[in-house]
């Protein structure tokens, strides 16, 4: 592989997943982010999720834009191809890649700057097309890589390191995505891996566009007092709604019926997501009430988290287009070439 991998020491004692891989097989190159950066915690949750789902790394394709967050695909799943594209344009790369090969598993990593400013258009249109992919926004309220300018997700009144308050109202990717018809919308916190991993697993298994907005504090530029995206502020203001538990299809038989679960949704491959109530009033399958709930709590300064909206029945891009089940990229040329005789027939119409 063409990058620096962490030295791979085999740990005979490490547990393996169903395809015989250990968690180390899901690692990537050494991270070059700041120590304590939220993005690194998310990478580790991603590795855990793919490991637990026993997905072969090379069947995953990683795409990203530009930013500290967008660098992270190098730091996980070293056995997967990756594409670090241009700023704000990852959704189009993902769409084209998915058009060419629907059989792979797609993970897109972006930042709040990447998705909500320069890339807002592409972000919205990837949702509209319902590309079958997991899309993560590692949301820190700033442009980390260009040294801490406010991003479009920064809350009004949140202060920069030097004290200036942000005068503009924020774009909430979760509300935006739900209103655009996104079929899977969740919000998590990089500091809460326990709830992040099952949500990522559900997002990976969702057929269609799965957005995860993950609050991921930037320790260097946006973790001070006065910032609404700091570790402390996020922890203090989390508003948990429902927790999603992910159960793979084959585990179903042994899984205990959990009395706390109030809703189960079966995914396309037969696995299922079970919802546990945290807030009695929340229903993750009702779009209108979800929007109202999130708006209400946002106006109180709370960060609503959980698997906030899920619709498993909508059609992803290929079923809308009526594409072959087989990947375009692997169709043999014999199936693509109409042949000389056909050409003669076509040209008869041009006389």
């Amino acid at each position, binding site marked *: 592989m063409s990058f620096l991998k962490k030295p791979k020491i085999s740990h005979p004692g490490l547990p393996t997943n169903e395809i015989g891989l250990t968690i180390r097989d899901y690692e990537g190159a050494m991270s070059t982010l700041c120590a304590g950066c939220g993005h690194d915690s998310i990478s580790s949750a991603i590795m855990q999720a793919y490991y637990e789902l026993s997905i072969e790394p090379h069947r995953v394709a990683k795409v990203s834009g530009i930013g500290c967050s967008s660098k992270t695909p190098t730091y996980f799943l070293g056995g*997967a191809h990756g594409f*670090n*594209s241009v700023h704000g*344009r990852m959704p189009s790369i993902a769409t084209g890649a998915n058009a060419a090969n629907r059989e792979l598993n797609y993970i897109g990593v972006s930042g709040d700057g990447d998705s909500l400013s320069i890339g807002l258009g592409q972000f919205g249109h990837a949702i509209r097309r319902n590309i079958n992919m997991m899309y993560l926004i590692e949301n820190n309220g700033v442009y980390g890589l260009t040294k801490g300018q406010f991003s479009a997700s920064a809350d009004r009144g949140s202060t920069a390191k030097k004290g200036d308050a942000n005068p503009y109202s924020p774009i909430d990717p979760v509300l935006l995505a739900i209103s655009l018809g996104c079929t899977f919308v969740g919000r998590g916190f990089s500091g809460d891996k326990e709830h992040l991993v099952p949500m990522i697993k559900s997002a990976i298994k969702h057929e269609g566009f799965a957005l995860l907005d993950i609050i991921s504090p930037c320790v260097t530029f946006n973790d001070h007092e006065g910032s609404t995206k700091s570790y402390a502020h996020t922890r203090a203001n989390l508003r948990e709604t429902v927790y999603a538990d992910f159960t793979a299809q084959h585990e179903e038989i042994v899984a205990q019926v959990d009395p706390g679960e109030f809703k189960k949704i079966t995914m396309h491959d037969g696995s299922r997501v079970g919802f546990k109530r945290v807030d009695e009033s929340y229903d993750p399958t009702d779009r209108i009430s979800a929007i109202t709930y999130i708006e209400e709590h946002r106006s109180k300064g709370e960060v609503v988290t959980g698997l906030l909206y899920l619709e498993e029945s909508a059609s992803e891009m290929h079923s809308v287009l009526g*594409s072959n089940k087989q*990947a375009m*990229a692997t169709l043999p*040329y014999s199936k693509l070439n109409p042949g000389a005789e056909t050409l003669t027939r076509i040209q008869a119409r041009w006389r």
Partner: protein
Amino acid sequence: MTTSKLNDFVIKLANVNGTGSASANGMLMKSIFRMGIPVTGKNFFPSNIQGLPTWYEIRISKDGYLCRSGKVDLMIAMNAETYKADLAEVDPGGYLMYDSTWPRNDILDRNDVTVLGIPLSAMCNEAFESARAKVLMKNVAYVGALVALLDIDMDVIENLLKETFSTKPHLADANIQAIKMGFDYATENFDCPLPLKLSPMEATKGHVIVDGNTTAGLGAVYAGATVTSWYPITPSTSLIDAFSLFCQQLRKDPETGENNYCVIQAEDELSAIGMVLGANWNGARAFTATSGPGVSLMSEFLGLAYYAEIPAVLYDVQRVSPSTGMPTRTQQCDIVSAAYASHGDTKQVLLFPSDPSDCFHMSKIAFDLAERLQTPVIVLTDLDIGMNDWMIPEIEWDDSYLPDRGKVYDAKQLKDMDAFYRYLDVDGDAIPWRTLPGVDSKGAYFVRGSGHNKFGGYTEKSDEYTDVVDRLRRKFDTAATLVPAPIINIDDAMPREKNYALLSIGSCDGAIREAREKMQLDGQGNLDYMRIQGFPFHKDVAVFIDQYEQVFVIEQNRDAQLRQLLTVELDIDPKRLIPLLSYDGMPVSSNFIVEGVTALIKQGHAA
């Protein structure tokens, strides 16, 4: 003063956009083609859906010249608004037909033009019921008059109508009625046929009439393209429309009925090219089509594709720029912006088709080159090629063709090797090997636009960076050996002009060929002529230029962009490259070239 012009004249039809003239005019052109007489049709249309003036120019040429001659022999002046200008454009000795329902004796101020008045509106108002038919059938009626005036074969017209309306016979009847009305009026009121007339030939056998966007779209189907994404823009839209339509007809899986193609209308051109890169990275042949403004938007991604070495095919159907310019007029104005599309030291591979035939064949070449070289290939066509009706020899296809997918390691090759490194020059041709996602984790690497070394790893080390970009420069030397060689036309039958030669690209070709022959016949010189087909320039380009004191570089833009490129890339003394430029938005005519070249030669001799 009228001389007989058998099978050799120009009809120009001046209409109002949105009145249904296009199909009548197309039928007129096609009937001439079916009489075996070489013919082409050019559309000069406005950026408008209804109401503005539009023209269709039909050139009939027994000698097979397919460009604009620069003259008009017969004007069908159906647009009152442009009547004066249309009359002024007719060549002395020519004819003008108009709708004499509203007589115009007051402004018929040319006595060297014969005016033919036909009360088309009056006739159609009387004969047809619906308001729509009254408007549409006027067009068909003037075609009917031309059947008599030009001696068009009535059977040919009737058959065409029957074919066109095979599913709506009542429409065929109405059309035939209108044809007969026009025909009868002309026969009764004028001396038919005119000295401008047609007589059947056998010169269109083995030929077809088609536009270049259709053939480019079809070429992409035959090249095995499976993914396209685009954002609508004139004059490129019909290329994607053609691809989609052919795919609907030819690319449904016979067993499952599923599509073996994906057509995605993007939200803008940035996204369109992004999808194309994503798809090519993932192993599909994918392309987009746009025009100048779109290329500007795509240029950031084109830099990434160049640097990260991702194949892509982009058709740029050029139109008059800058900005929105005149979007329905033609130019060759994106040569420099396409050649150096993007920031930094970038260079792109270009192909220059000259007609719809090239559009088909160069599609295949474009995809092969893009994958062989792992870089974008831009096919620089233009509105004249893309949207006008050209007569070309029937396109042939060799069923033994197999796409050149370039250097891609498969699973077995990966298994057998110790390690894979993305950007190594293993073979000494400066083209590295690539791998596709999903095949084997040993082939995994990270595509990035940031600095990378030859192993594919991130770098900010100067020597590692220069190592890669120097190889990319060498890759362009390889590209120069792979692009199609220039086409050099030398005529040894008479003494050759030693000091001067002609050089051009793309759609100037037809006009230059005719101009050359005219100049030969008129004793104005026998000039060698080279048409360049690709960029980076093939080695034969410099060899040709070196033979002459001066080379006239003919192109359709204001700033002599091809000449700029030749000067910079081949280090040629600019004084030896003399520009001859046509940039008014009209396809360049043979007349313009004869006059321009003659004047340049005179100047050269005087100097």
